[in-house]
Structures are given as structure tokens and as C-alpha cells.
């Protein structure tokens, strides 16, 4: 049988998805099902004086109308899983607002009706008497003494302060021959998964069993938390996440609506469905990024980096969601990037504002770190008059330094940063473009070249470093016919693990890929698991699958030895059979072994029947993918338009199970980074109104915007797991933003432009050019 692992095997999930046979939560229809609609605050900050639901209750087809007061004490507040510092201030997060609303979109009341239209109509009949309060929208102003306090019981808008430090930072800056300083905005983004959130709940009163279908990345964690919120034993809650139309971290969450819809199904004893509208998704599902800070880099005149410091204000939004406080800490972990930086410090103030919570969005804290550092490397190169490739090369952690521990205690597993840089320079034809750039400048054309050499932290992660467990589970179950079922706790939502896990199991067991079925996303079918986020699907989830498959194979080998009447050591696995090494005529098929395991008449006397194994894999460390991306662009200085002429990505995600999936993830990730770099910005006005509340005002890259990308790889296997895999789900998003910005800033250098904040829309680029031209 040809090898499967390492091959570009076509995605097994695609036929159903591209023919419309996928099954999403909103496709699930149940008898007697009714529909919920949620009334949301039109104000960013207001006191609720009174809510009159009487007209709504009398409207056609209404089953129930509930407000925050009706459910007080019945649904526990939503917990947050991340606690970076013990003195962190935590607001109470009720499912529906009780006395105050804290952001536009804050749930205030819920209507349940016989159909979606009637539910929506009834929202207009609820009368809420609000007393408007002054909102806090600017995170920097949130800490001023005269700023309105959002959570009055906390007495401050400062959620917490956090610091990470390694090496002697002050000494590094005292010794510095050059200090480069820059303010940066990592703007607020909206994740925009294609499928908005959707929740359906059904209450089985006889068994006191609540089933919740929800579009989530983490079905088991949703079960644990929602059970607690609803005062139910965990084994009386079943969570099903069927096909999920993208998550990007926005569904690495437990949301109040999941508990609320569950509560409604229980109390009404009818199935209740709620499907988020796109506008609700924009207002009330988590946003990403939103850091404003200043970075300083201390260097010697020869380009050697001595130290780095970053002071930042991170906008939490009005509440914490599942991991809100932890996201900017990931920025701190990766501040040293690909370089030997002997001293590093990040000081963070996390603040509350009257906006939707921020949380994990593809990359989660690491794109911020890469963006800051890789912009600084270019600024330092310009300051010192050296080539941006050279200053990187000079400071790279060398390949023989791994495992390498940063001054603040992060241990990188493996890497070869210079190899990726060299390969990218070669593929992009760096020298040729530098010459072209010079020629173009003579003609008044502005070409720029931007390099980004990144390292990121993923394969999340060892449990001791994770808020809610960092392991993953898998069961490999061989049925009596020899067909194989894989139950994975790593529930994918678009990445393609049904395919990569099939490849791993089929190869390990020597069965045909079509004989393997991967099942996930149902807490009643699959043993407890953590889920897919932080690029952990393959490195952690895949390793659990691999270990479980090995255990099944070992048992099968023992059964084979017994059936062949030879010693275990004499049996080898070959093309779906087990064969005697010495006598190839003696073999048993996989089907014969499976049959023997379930009908154990002729069977090893001391062996349990059945052919199933479960593995819980705990990684010893994170993994650290890396790479170099190079962008070549031309700026039309008359309009501010940026045209991407060439984009090369050379990534190291460790050993690759499926190059097709890797390429798809890299390209998708880069396009998402292109969105942040060039297009996207979530805008609230000073009253806290969300101005980018629809896809007509919030731009995401479309096919015609996306640059053409040349993808290549270098490979340093991770020593952390037996697959040697590192992870690739976020690498593109993490690595790419500074390549775009560096390219544009490089192009505009002759005009005296040093930095432009993202996104580099034509309007912003043009403004920067106008400003630079002012005398």
C-alpha cells in the first residue's frame, strides 16, 4: 500500500460540504420546535429603568418573553476560564442584562414564538425605559480619573495589570547605541465566520437530559460550563456540534445564549432554536485584537539587538468571554520572535470599555507580537542603514541552539529560521526586486519589499500552561467487519482533520482510507476532549489518534501471532494483513483479526475481546512553527492603492501529514492577514455605536482582492510529539501582516513615511502621503 501520511490526499469532508449535504445546526429540525429572538441594547451604556413586555406577550404566536430579572438566580453567570493574575477584576456576566447594559448588542430580553418572523416582530413590542449613561469607548481614556465607571461594583475600568520580564531590560537600554521607538495600533477586528452562531436545545423531561446543538469549536467545554450555569449534572447535558461553518476563535467560546436557549427548552419543555443574524454576530460575538502600545528596541550600532520593551493597553470590551484576559498575554510570550533577544519586558494594562468583548481571533495574541517585532526590525534596519534581511539574519536564533529558551522562559522546540529566509529570498528574487525598486523610483514609481520572519507558539499545549486542559483524546474502534471508527475530542470546524486523521489511522492500521470514519462533535458519542484552537488539531489531537491507533495495532498483532501460531516478534504488518516474517504464505487479514476479536472462539486465552483503544495525549510543550514571508508591492501614490506584485511564504510547520491541507491553511491564513493589513477595521463611534455593523461596512477579503501567493516549506520536525508536527492553522495569519505593511512602508520611504497604522486602505495610504508632503 502506498504511504498516506505526507500525501496530498483530497479532503474527505468536501463532497458533502460542496454539494450542500453538510448538516449545520440550523439544518436540524425538531417536532414542536419554536424560535427565539433576542432584544439587544441600542445603547453602549445605560441603566434599565423598566422593561414592559406586556404588548409582546399578547402578540400572535408568542410562547414566552423573559427579561434579566425573570432568570436571575436561575441561570448562573457566565464564567471566564482565564485568570492571568489573582487580583484580576471580574464583572458578573448574566445571560440577560439586569440593571445596566454595557455595550450595543447586550442581550436585554428574549422572545420565544412559533416561528422566526413572529419572534422578531414581537421584539419591536417590548418597551425598555433606558437612562443613557456616558459611554467609555477609548481604552486609553478609560483609565482617566474622570472616566465613567462601567462596572460600578468593581470601582474601576482597569481590569488588571500584567507584566512579563526576562533579562536585564534597563541595563540593555542603558547600553544601547541606538533605540528605536514606535507606537502601534493592532486594530479591533470582527472574525466573520461564514456560519453565524446557532443554538438549538431540546429537553428530555423523562430522563432530565438537555441536548444542545451549537456551532462551537469546543463541545465538551460548552457542556461543562452550561451544565454548571443551568444547575444540571454534567452527565445530563449533551452537546452536539455538527458541521461548523468556520470559527476562527469566535466559536472557541461559551456564550450566554447557549445557556439561555437551554434554559428556555427546559422551562418550556419544547425545542427552542436561535440563529444569530449577521448583525448580531457583528455586535455580540467576540471581536479580536485591539491593542494600543509603544514598543522600544535597544540595539548596538552593528545591528545586534540588546533588549526590547512593550507597554500596552489591551481593550477587554465590557465583559470577559472565555479567554479574554489571556489573549494579550500570548503577545508577551512571543515578543522575542525569531531572535536572540537577551532582555524583554511587556507591561500590560487591561481595560474595560463599552464594547463587545475581545477574545481569541485566528492567531490570538501572536499576530500582534509578530506585527510589532517585525515592524521594529524594519524600522531598526532603516535607522541603521542595513538591509532588512541582514538585520534579521544577524539576530536569528541559530539552528543548533534548539531547544532554545528565551529570557522570559519560553522554550522553542526546533527551527531553522535562516533556511526559510534564504529560501524565501531566492523564491521572491530579492536582488532582482531591489534593483527594480531603484529603477522604478527613478521613474516616480513606488515599489516596496517587505519581509516578515515569524515564530509562533501553538500546539496548545501542556495542561499546566492552559486554562482548561491541554491534552486531547482519541478512540480508535475496529468494528467486527474490520471497518474503523475514530472518535476524536479534537472537533474540527473546517480545517480538514477528518482527512488527516483518516490518513494517520489508515496508514497505521494498513486499512483503506474509505474504511475509516472520523466522528467528532458529540459529547455523547465521543469521550471528553478539549477541541480545536491554537493550531492544536494535528499536533495534539492527531497525536492522540496516532497513539490510539498504535495501541489497536499492537493488540491486533498479538491476535495475529496467536492465529498464525508464531511469536509476536515474527509478525509484521503489510498491506492490511499481518504476515510471518519467515514465511510469507502465513498471514491473516485485518478482517480476520477483527472477526476473531468480536467472536473470540479461537483467541488468546488471556486477552479481552474487542479491538478498541483510547488515548489521552498530554503534550510536554507547545510547538513553535516559523517561517519567512516576503511581499512585493507597488503603491499608486496618486490614489493610495496598493497592488501586491508578488507574495512568497516559506513556512516550517514541522512534519506534514497532508501538504494540500497545509497549503490551504497557509493561503487562507495569509488572506485573513491581508484583511487585517489592508482592509479590516471594526469601528465604534464615540457614543459606542458600532459603525461597521454589516458586511456592507466591514470589508473582508474577497477572491478578487486576495493576492496570489507562492507557498513553499522548510521542515524541522518538532521533537514534542511523535508525528513531528507543529501546527499550521494560524501561521499564515501570524506571519503575514508585517510583510504587507513593511512592503508598503518600504515603498513609501522616499516620501519620508516611516509607519502607517493598519489597515492600509487606499484612503489611509493617500492621507499618509499627503501628510508627509506637507512642508
Amino acid at each position, binding site marked *: 500500500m502506498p504511504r498516506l501520511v505526507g500525501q496530498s490526499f483530497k479532503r474527505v469532508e468536501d463532497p458533502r460540504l460542496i454539494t450542500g449535504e453538510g448538516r449545520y445546526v440550523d439544518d436540524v429540525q425538531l417536532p414542536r420546535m419554536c424560535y427565539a429572538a433576542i432584544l439587544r441594547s441600542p445603547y453602549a451604556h445605560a441603566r434599565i429603568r423598566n422593561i414592559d413586555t406586556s404588548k409582546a406577550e399578547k402578540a400572535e404566536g408568542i410562547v414566552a418573553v423573559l427579561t434579566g430579572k425573570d432568570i436571575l438566580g436561575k441561570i448562573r453567570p457566565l464564567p471566564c476560564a482565564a485568570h492571568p493574575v489573582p487580583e484580576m477584576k471580574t464583572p458578573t456576566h448574566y445571560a440577560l442584562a439586569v440593571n445596566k447594559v454595557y455595550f450595543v448588542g447586550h442581550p436585554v430580553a428574549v422572545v420565544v414564538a412559533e416561528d*422566526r*418572523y413572529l419572534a*422578531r*416582530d414581537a421584539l*419591536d413590542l417590548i418597551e425598555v425605559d433606558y437612562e443613557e449613561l456616558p459611554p467609555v469607548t477609548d481604552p486609553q481614556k478609560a483609565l482617566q480619573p474622570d472616566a465613567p465607571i462601567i462596572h460600578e461594583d468593581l470601582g474601576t475600568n482597569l481590569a488588571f495589570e500584567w507584566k512579563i520580564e526576562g533579562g536585564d531590560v534597563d541595563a540593555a537600554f542603558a547600553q544601547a547605541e541606538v533605540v528605536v521607538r514606535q507606537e502601534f495600533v493592532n486594530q479591533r477586528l470582527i472574525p466573520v465566520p461564514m456560519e453565524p452562531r446557532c443554538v438549538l436545545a431540546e429537553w428530555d423531561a423523562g430522563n432530565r437530559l438537555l441536548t444542545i446543538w451549537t456551532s462551537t469549536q469546543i463541545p465538551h467545554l460548552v457542556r461543562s460550563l452550561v451544565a454548571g450555569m443551568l444547575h444540571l449534572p454534567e452527565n445530563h447535558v449533551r452537546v452536539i456540534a455538527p458541521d461548523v461553518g468556520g470559527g476562527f476563535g469566535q466559536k472557541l467560546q461559551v456564550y450566554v445564549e447557549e445557556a439561555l436557549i437551554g434554559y428556555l427548552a427546559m422551562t418550556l419543555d419544547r425545542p427552542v432554536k436561535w440563529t444569530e*443574524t*449577521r*448583525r448580531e454576530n457583528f455586535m455580540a460575538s467576540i471581536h479580536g485584537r485591539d491593542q494600543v502600545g509603544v514598543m522600544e528596541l535597544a540595539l548596538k550600532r552593528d545591528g545586534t539587538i540588546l533588549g526590547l520593551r512593550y507597554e500596552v493597553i489591551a481593550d477587554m470590551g465590557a465583559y470577559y468571554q472565555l479567554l479574554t484576559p489571556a489573549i494579550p498575554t500570548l503577545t508577551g510570550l512571543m515578543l522575542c520572535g525569531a531572535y536572540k533577544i537577551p532582555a524583554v519586558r511587556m507591561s500590560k494594562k487591561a481595560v474595560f470599555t463599552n464594547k463587545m468583548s475581545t477574545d481569541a481571533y485566528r492567531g490570538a495574541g501572536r499576530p500582534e507580537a509578530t506585527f510589532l517585532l517585525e515592524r521594529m526590525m524594519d524600522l531598526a534596519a532603516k535607522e541603521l542603514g542595513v538591509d532588512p534581511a541582514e538585520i534579521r539574519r544577524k539576530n536569528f536564533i541559530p539552528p543548533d541552539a534548539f531547544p532554545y529558551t528565551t529570557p522570559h522562559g519560553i522554550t522553542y522546540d526546533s527551527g531553522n529560521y535562516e533556511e526559510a529566509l534564504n529560501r524565501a529570498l531566492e523564491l521572491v528574487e530579492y536582488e532582482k526586486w531591489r534593483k527594480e525598486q531603484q529603477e522604478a523610483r527613478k521613474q516616480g514609481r513606488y515599489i516596496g519589499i517587505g519581509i516578515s520572519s515569524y515564530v509562533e507558539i501553538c500546539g496548545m499545549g501542556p495542561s499546566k500552561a492552559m486554562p482548561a486542559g491541554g491534552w486531547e483524546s482519541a478512540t480508535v474502534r475496529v468494528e467486527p467487519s474490520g471497518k474503523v471508527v475514530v472518535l476524536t475530542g479534537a472537533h474540527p470546524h473546517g480545517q480538514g482533520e477528518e482527512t488527516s486523521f483518516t490518513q494517520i489511522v489508515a496508514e497505521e492500521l494498513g486499512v483503506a482510507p474509505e474504511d475509516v470514519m472520523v466522528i467528532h462533535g458529540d459529547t455523547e458519542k465521543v469521550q471528553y476532549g478539549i477541541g480545536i484552537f491554537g493550531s492544536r488539531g494535528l499536533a495534539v489531537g492527531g497525536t492522540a489518534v496516532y497513539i490510539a491507533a498504535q495501541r489497536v495495532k499492537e493488540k491486533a498483532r498479538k491476535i495475529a501471532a496467536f492465529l498464525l501460531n508464531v511469536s509476536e516478534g515474527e509478525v509484521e504488518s503489510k498491506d492490511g494483513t499481518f504476515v510471518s516474517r519467515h514465511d510469507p504464505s502465513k498471514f491473516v487479514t485485518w478482517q480476520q483479526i477483527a472477526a476473531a476479536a468480536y467472536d473470540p472462539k479461537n483467541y488468546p486465552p488471556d486477552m479481552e475481546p474487542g479491538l478498541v483503544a483510547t488515548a489521552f495525549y498530554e503534550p510536554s510543550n507547545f510547538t513553535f512553527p516559523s517561517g519567512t514571508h516576503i511581499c512585493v508591492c507597488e503603491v499608486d501614490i*496618486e*490614489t*493610495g*492603492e496598493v497592488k501586491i506584485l508578488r507574495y512568497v511564504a516559506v513556512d516550517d510547520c514541522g512534519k506534514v501529514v497532508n501538504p494540500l491541507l497545509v497549503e490551504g491553511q497557509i493561503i487562507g491564513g495569509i488572506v485573513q492577514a491581508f484583511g487585517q493589513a489592508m*482592509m479590516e477595521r471594526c*469601528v465604534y463611534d464615540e457614543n459606542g455605536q458600532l*459603525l*461597521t455593523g*454589516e*458586511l*456592507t*461596512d*466591514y*470589508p*473582508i477579503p*474577497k477572491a478578487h*482582492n486576495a493576492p496570489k501567493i507562492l507557498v513553499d516549506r522548510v521542515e524541522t520536525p518538532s521533537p514534542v510529539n511523535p508525528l513531528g508536527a507543529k501546527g499550521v492553522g494560524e501561521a499564515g495569519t501570524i506571519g503575514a501582516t508585517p510583510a504587507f505593511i513593511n512592503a508598503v512602508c518600504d515603498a513609501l520611504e522616499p516620501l519620508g513615511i516611516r509607519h502607517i497604522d493598519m489597515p492600509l*486602505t*487606499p*484612503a489611509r495610504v*493617500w*492621507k499618509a502621503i499627503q501628510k508627509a508632503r506637507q512642508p
Partner: protein
Amino acid sequence: MFPAPFEYHAPTTLQEALRLLAQHGDNAKVLAGGQSLVPMMKMRLATPAVVIDLNRIADLSYIREEGEVIAIGAMTRHYEVETSELLKRRCPLLSECAAHIGDVQVRNRGTIGGSLAHADPAADYPAAILACDAEIKVINPNGIERVIKATDFFVDLFTTALQPNELITEVRIPAFAPKTGSAYLKMEQLASGFALCGVAVKVTMDGGAIQDVRVGITGVAPKAYRAFAVEDALKGKSPDPSTVEQVAQHAADGVTPLEDIHADAEYRAHLARVLTKRALLKAIERAQAS
């Protein structure tokens, strides 16, 4: 997104549609391609009590040659305008402009009459309609038809010269004269695909001089407009690039540009000037090559 309740009518003849419009008056909204009305209804920004759907009136959809005029039925889809061989030959500006509208799905449903009646200040068609000096034929429930010149049609933000009881039946475009070239250039609002600025130019050459020129600009002002200052300054002139560049500086004269989170007034006015220059140069080049 769920619209408020509404009464729905789908007449199969123009007469029936006009009768319904007379009956329901201001309570009614006319549904053509629905690419603006339906989203507005779903967001409850529009809550008409009655919707009159024109999609089943078959004889409002056509593109035909009537001597020196191309007549386009109001319910003709953008895709049909974009791909019409007749238009590409006799009025390529309209096809080029239609190709810039929305995306494939929008072009498959959206109609020329619907777009003009809606008068979105950032829609593409108005620029080309103005540059082509088109006429818009309308009818009221009494069967009285009138023809409105493009320059009179766009009145203000989402406001046209159309009376509440009138329907657009046809758009009439003069066919290009010999030695005529045109171009439509646009800077997109990145999210919606609408124009931050769209400039349509039609130029007719006479030997080495510009005999006639029309410039229609959309996206910049509350309504699409003709850049008369540019046109007047170019007529009879030789089309050298420096003249064009100089004249194009007047593309936003007398206009109060729109401002929003995507672009401020200064950038929109600047785009009007730059895109006018570029569209003029392109159109002149095409005219000279024709």
C-alpha cells in the same frame, strides 16, 4: 434578518402594476431586482406595507436597437447589459459600467430600472447614464408617459424626478457616434463594492480636437452629477495629457462631497479629479483608436 410583515403582489402586466401602485400609493414599494430593497427590508430600514413585484412582467426586459437609440427595458438585468453584443458595439460605456456593479449574484438579479429608481449616491449606473446623455421613460397609472433627461433625473440622496405613482419602463441611450471612445473607472468601497468614486467618460473626437465630451461622476456627492466645468473646458481642445490633467482638477468643483468611515470629503474629491483624468485619457485613446 427578518422583514416586518408586508402585503405582496406580483402583477404580470404593466397595467396591473400601475393599478396596484395607484391603489396603494405611498404605502407601496416596487420590487425590481431587490438587491437594495430586500436587504433594507430584512434590516427593517424599509418597512413597506405593500410590495409590488415587477419580476413577472416579461415585456419590461429587452435591449433593442431603434435607429440611433438603444432602448433598454427597465427590468433588464445588469448581467444582460454587461454582456449585450449590441451595447458593446453601439454603447460600450454602459456594458463596461454594468460589469463593475456588485458581484455575479447581484448582476444576475439587479435591474437597470431598479438601480436608477433607487438612486443610491454610490451606484455605478448613474455615472454612465449621465455620460451617455440617456433618457428615462416613465409611465403613470393614467397611462401618461414622459421622458426625463438623465441630467434632470437625479435630484438628491436616494431621490429622483420620478413621481410616487410612476414606474420606469425604459432607458434610452443614444448610440455612439463615430470616433467616440469611453471609459468607466472606479474606486470601490472595500466592503460594499459600491463606488467611493466612479467616473464615466464619453469622448467624441473631430480630427485632432475633442468635439464632444461628457463626464458623469458617482459616489462623490449626494447625487451623481455631470462635471460640466471639465466638459466645457475640453470642448474644441487638443487632447494632450497636460491639458487633460489641468482640466480634470475641476471635476469636483461646486460639489459638497460625502463623508463616512470609508473616505472623507477630501479623498472623495481627490479621487474625482484623479479618476476623471485617467478616464478621460483612456476614453480619448479609445476614441482615437476607433
